[in-house]
């Protein structure tokens, strides 16, 4: 399974791709496969605030519901509306088309604590 090396990873299996102060996040392919078929993704309202360490959404699979935890504080700029109709995009392509939330980060420093691709690969193997 490929773990792209252009982003950061949390131990709760979210990925963060940074572009200036805009951060795109989602869950990893590993997490998507562990959760099995994803049936619904509950995402935050665009324009709402998120705070580091809190849940910004919920991911429902056939077997369980889990929180989407956001490592940074900021404002929700966009959510992936395509997931409402096609939650399976997360299973098919978690690192790209299965993205979940775009955040205007207030402070990027919490991302320094996260793993790079190599460390995350270790973490899941």
């Amino acid at each position, binding site marked *: 399974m490929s773990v792209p090396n252009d982003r950061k990873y949390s131990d709760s299996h979210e990925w963060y791709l940074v572009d200036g102060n805009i951060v795109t996040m989602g869950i990893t392919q590993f997490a998507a496969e562990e959760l*099995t078929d994803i049936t619904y993704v509950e995402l935050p309202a665009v324009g709402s605030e998120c705070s580091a360490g809190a849940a910004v959404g919920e991911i*429902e699979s056939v077997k369980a*519901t889990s929180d989407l935890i956001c490592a940074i504080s900021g404002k929700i700029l966009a959510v992936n509306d395509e997931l409402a109709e096609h939650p399976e995009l997360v299973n098919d392509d978690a690192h790209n088309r299965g993205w979940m939330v775009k955040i205007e980060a207030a402070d990027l420093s919490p991302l320094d604590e996260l793993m790079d691709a190599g460390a995350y690969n270790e973490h899941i193997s």
Partner: protein
Amino acid sequence: MNQSPLHNYHVKLGARMVDFAGWSMPVMYRGIIDEHNHTRTKCSLFDVSHMGRLYLTGSDTEALLQHVCTRNVGDMAVGLSRYTHVCREDGGILDDVIVSRFEDQYLVVCNASNRQKITDWLNKHAAGKDVQMTDRTMETAMIALQGPEAIPQVQKLLNIDLSDLKRYHFQTGSYFTFKYAIFRSGYTGEDGVELILPAGIVKLAMPALMGMGNGDDAVIKPAGLGARDSLRLEAGMPLYGHELTEDWDSLTARQGWCVHLDKDFIGADAMREKKQAGLSRKIVGLKLEGRRTARQGFEVRSGGETIGQVTSGVLSPTLGCSLAMALVNIDHSKEGTELSIQFGAKEVPATVVKIPFYKLAS
């Protein structure tokens, strides 16, 4: 941890194994929804070897079973199986089991999680009576073949004719030199069979069966406990620990059809009283708006009050909508009643609907 005789096959087929009631069992192979749909359209093979298999002999066996089972099992012909509950004196459900009558013995198939409890319960009530019980769970395997293609496939594989085998009947046969029992029953809402065979022979039979599961266009493919759960839920079948618990009785669980109050059994008095007084709550089916899945324990609400709890939920692969079963106050149990289910801070509207949600056209 207990392992099924088929453990190596599951691992070889890439199954994801989970701990289920002390057994390492496959929850899925390719994907739960894929396995679910394959069962509804073709045929799936489920390993259900974790289920308890207790064999009873002795002249008092029939009387014992009649005493502990909610359903009349006293008049069973050889070759017949019956679904029944086993309850406490106060009606609390200890387990749901299937009793089968062989020529020289009875078989009780119970849930893996309740095997010790049911063994102890039967032993306790057999004290001083002529009943000998043998637990053959570990020395046998149990597999289910379910789906519209199950009967033709099994007939071909075992070279037998099942056209006269009615639902909830069984017959015995042999594969090589080993004996097996084949039951026309299952837990998916589809036609199909369940087979009990010696643990050794199942390894001989599996290459033929599972070998068919490798190709994309195979008719028989393996399916795990995940699909088994979503299939049984669509079919409105209760699951122990969800719709059935010691905390309520069989009538409340909406399983009165397997309770014969005109005979004496443990729990009969309590259930007669309950019936006379009227039930205070009941298991119902719910259809939710939208595509979110309700989980066990979620609150069911009406008019700002909590009036029940979800027992199981699924985003139905076959019906394409979100379904749940819930224990609700009797005033809110009528078909068509509008309720809501609490998802964290949000409420999702839900309507009481008929169970089963999915029924095979007959």
